[in-house]
């Protein structure tokens, strides 16, 4: 900014803010112009063919028993209508549109990855498998090979058919060093050993170890990568940062304006519309994600009808903000929908490579100084519940005996004194004999969480611990954490089908950037058990090992679980329609257009509602509470 303006005089302060924003806005405008050319880059696709490896055909073993599942109840609604534009928002613009490689694991990846379908899907209510890209599957005699028969109608969004070669290529791709993704490199070498092609629409995937059939379909599955689109070389990461890959899902990205918005367009004649379980889902034609960098500003957009739905999980939104005329007149409706599914692991993650946090006593002392109960009962109005550990809600796999460490100043004092922090300075913060203060930096990524952390900080002071809060943009926060430059990270991991330990706790992933072992756990004994867990075929043994691993990681105390939210709460304009059962057992967000996406948008109703609002005609207020899947 111009500094002459800055230090001279008489600046009206409101104008000053406006000026700051104008600057930010202008520069982004410039950036977006320059990107259009790269985004619309539609080079010919056939130039890659000569450098592609040719895959060997193999003979299919005899006696395979092909299975499929077309008998589970459908969970979408026949009443669903297609069409309309769904307006949603994102807090920050994604750093890349790649689904793998550096910076690709941000929150926007949820949407881009949802567009790459797998071989099979999991029924959200029965938890059975159902056919997606594969129509049938069969298990080999060795207990670690799965055979898949591919759907011959499946095509990429650019019209190319999905064939066995795309799956063969997927493995080469995921193993390549050029994608700079150690987790995938490892997974597609040590978990998935090989992929074989029998004909254009039959493949097999060989896993490293024998597993129960139900886990094999999940573990030894694969999403195809469009072979005709990628050219793998050392420039891949940069070259494909903003290129729009063909998808197998219902949508493809159609418009990217950097820093501003991303638009998804539904694929015409999508092959999935003929699938029993995909029919009547993904009903809107266009999905537009606008970057709105502040949740409260997004809320104002929502109230103006410029966004179609809004999450109300946060107590302040549900109790205070989601009230008023638009709600009383029924233009905007609310739903609270209980679910039964694995819980994300929200909490504080400590970096054990830090000299002080490497000390177990310090970690346990901190755990007893974090007053989660008070935070839940006061700030969060008792709406959230205490999370007990990292892997809660995984059925048999969750260790029921693990209890979180309670706020207990006596215990905190014992642990911290044992670590040498006995005395307190004049500001009531503990110091050790070298005069070092017991202060830690907590990095977090949402302004909305500041009150929670401020409360925890004040409570931790009682134990003589200082927590210094560092608020970053969510992408910057994530980058800092993955580069292992944090001391304590305030964040949560999303969930899987079964607990995973290797990515979070194996020493292979410790002390190096861009892996999920953000605690830098490095314990040979743990490594052995993690490998046994990964290789085990018996469910009983796996469950036992999972319990043991949970116990050990709990004892290491590098993670302080905070809260879980066993429901979703959302506000939506009345033109959004849902099936009669609203959602499913494992619904994450009802109005996630790329998730289960059971809802639809009634454009006539939208016109009617907007007109009614103009004229002051009101409808009955609607607040739905659905407890079908509530667990006690």
């Amino acid at each position, binding site marked *: 900014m111009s500094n002459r303006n800055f230090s001279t005089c008489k600046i009206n302060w409101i104008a000053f803010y406006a000026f700051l924003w104008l600057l*930010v806005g202008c520069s982004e405008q410039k950036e977006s112009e320059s990107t259009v050319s790269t985004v619309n880059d539609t080079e010919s696709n056939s130039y890659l063919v000569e450098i592609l490896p040719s895959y060997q055909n193999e003979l299919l073993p005899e006696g395979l028993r092909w299975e499929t599942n077309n008998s589970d109840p459908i969970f979408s609604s026949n009443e669903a209508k297609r069409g309309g534009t769904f307006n949603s928002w994102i807090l920050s613009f994604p750093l890349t549109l790649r689904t793998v490689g550096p910076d690709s694991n941000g929150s926007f990846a949820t949407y881009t990855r949802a567009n790459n379908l797998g071989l099979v899907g999991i029924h959200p209510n029965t938890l059975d498998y159902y056919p997606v890209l594969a129509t049938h599957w069969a298990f080999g005699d060795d207990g670690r090979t799965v055979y898949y028969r591919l759907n011959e109608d499946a095509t990429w969004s650019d019209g190319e058919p999905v064939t066995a070669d795309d799956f063969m290529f997927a493995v080469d791709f995921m193993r390549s060093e050029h994608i700079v993704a150690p987790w995938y490199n490892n997974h597609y070498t040590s978990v998935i050993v090989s992929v074989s092609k029998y004909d254009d629409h039959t493949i097999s995937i060989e896993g490293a170890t024998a597993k129960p059939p139900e886990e094999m379909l999940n573990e030894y599955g694969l999403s195809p990568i469009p072979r005709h689109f990628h050219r793998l070389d050392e420039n891949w990461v940069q070259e494909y940062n903003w290129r729009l890959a063909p998808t197998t899902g219902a949508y493809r990205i159609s418009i990217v304006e950097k820093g501003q918005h991303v638009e998804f367009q539904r694929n015409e004649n999508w092959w999935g519309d003929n699938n029993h379980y995909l029919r009547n889902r993904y009903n809107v034609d266009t999905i537009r994600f606008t970057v709105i960098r502040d949740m409260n500003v997004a809320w104002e957009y929502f109230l103006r009808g410029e966004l179609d739905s809004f999450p109300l999980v946060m107590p302040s939104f549900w109790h205070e903000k989601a009230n008023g005329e638009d709600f009383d007149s029924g233009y905007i409706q609310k739903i609270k929908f209980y679910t039964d599914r694995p819980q994300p692991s929200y909490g504080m993650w400590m970096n054990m490579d830090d000299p002080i946090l490497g000390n177990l006593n310090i970690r346990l002392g901190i755990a007893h100084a974090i007053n989660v109960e008070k935070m839940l009962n006061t700030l969060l109005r008792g709406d959230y519940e205490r999370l007990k550990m990292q892997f809660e809600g995984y059925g048999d796999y969750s260790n029921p005996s693990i209890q979180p460490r309670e706020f207990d*100043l006596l215990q905190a004092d014992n642990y911290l004194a044992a670590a040498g922090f006995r005395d307190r300075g004049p500001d009531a913060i503990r110091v050790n004999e070298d005069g070092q203060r017991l202060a830690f930096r907590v990095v977090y990524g949402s302004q909305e969480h500041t009150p929670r952390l401020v409360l925890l900080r004040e409570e931790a002071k009682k134990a003589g611990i200082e927590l210094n809060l560092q608020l970053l943009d969510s992408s910057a926060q994530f980058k800092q954490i993955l580069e292992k430059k944090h001391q304590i990270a305030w964040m949560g991991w999303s969930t899987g089908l079964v607990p995973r330990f290797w990515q979070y706790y194996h020493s292979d992933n410790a002390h190096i950037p861009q892996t999920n072992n953000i605690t830098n756990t490095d314990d040979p004994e743990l490594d052995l058990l993690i490998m046994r867990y990964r290789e085990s075929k018996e469910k009983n043994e796996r469950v036992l090992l999972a319990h043991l691993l949970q116990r050990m990681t709990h004892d290491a105390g590098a993670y302080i679980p905070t809260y879980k939210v066993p429901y979703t709460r959302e506000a939506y304009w009345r033109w959004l329609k849902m099936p009669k059962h609203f959602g499913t057992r494992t619904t994450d967000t009802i109005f996630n257009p790329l998730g289960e996406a059971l809802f639809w948008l009634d454009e006539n109703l939208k016109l009617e509602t907007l007109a009614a609002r103009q004229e002051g005609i009101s409808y009955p207020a609607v607040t739905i509470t659905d407890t079908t899947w509530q667990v006690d």
Partner: protein
Amino acid sequence: MLVLLALSIFAELLINNRAILVKYDGNYYFPTYTGFIAGTHFGLDYAYETNYRELKKHFSGQSENWVLLPPIPYSPFETNFLEDSFPPYPPSIDDQHYLGTDITGRDILARLAYGFRLAITFSIILLACNYLIGIAIGCAMGFWGGAFDLLFQRLIEIWSNVPFLYVIMIVASVIIPSFWTLAFIMVVFGWMGMTWYMRTATYKEKAREYVEAAKALGASNKRMIFRHILPNTVSIIVTFIPFSIATGITALTALDYLGFGLPPPTPSWGELLSQGTSNLQAPWIVTSVVFAMTIVLLMVTYIGEAVREAFDPKRFTFYE
């Protein structure tokens, strides 16, 4: 204004959760300035910092032990939760939250007062550093002129075009910006403004007869600058001071509002403002801070106007 400043220096005695004076077992304690005293010390059942409001209740009815609390018994960091209700709490005389609390249950008056102290200190430090550098370089440019002047003019022009906000954003994403790092960055990008005025003023004064006369009498450069030129440009400097203070306060507030300023939970007007604007259902937050801000900026501006008038040469000087 000066009264406010003076009050804010002793804010600890007026707005604090530490008591001014405690008499316990015949001894007197002054916890405001002596530091942390554990609850156990006063016969309470906890080892952390004494809650003096509770201590006062605890001592009520005992004549030999008593607690003298500040008029507003809350610290700007303390989160206070009332039974059966959730913050933000509206203003209430009974709870001694005279301007209510913010969304975390912290007293707004306390945060305003400490935020004011921080902003004004920041602004004064900024001013001192900016003016020191700005005047020195501006004066030198005007006095020596020529190649030196030309070089610095271009340097300043280039330097002025470095986007200050981006620098702050980059710094804020790498380190937690502290009071001093913020002040440093703002000085590094803020000293240029004053140079232009000083350069012009020095050029003007240097050409005057009295400087020529001093030069003819053999005065050194140092004497000419410090005894003749600087005292005659002081009116410009003094006139700018109040406005620079106002700019300093708004700049810090703006940065805090945008989230690139001092880290939470530092009491700050910008942070209160952003809380207020995102929680319009609790109007006391935004009204308090806007009102406080308006008053302070108006005061500073009025002082500035008065100073400008007092130094207005047209009222005392006559040119032929």
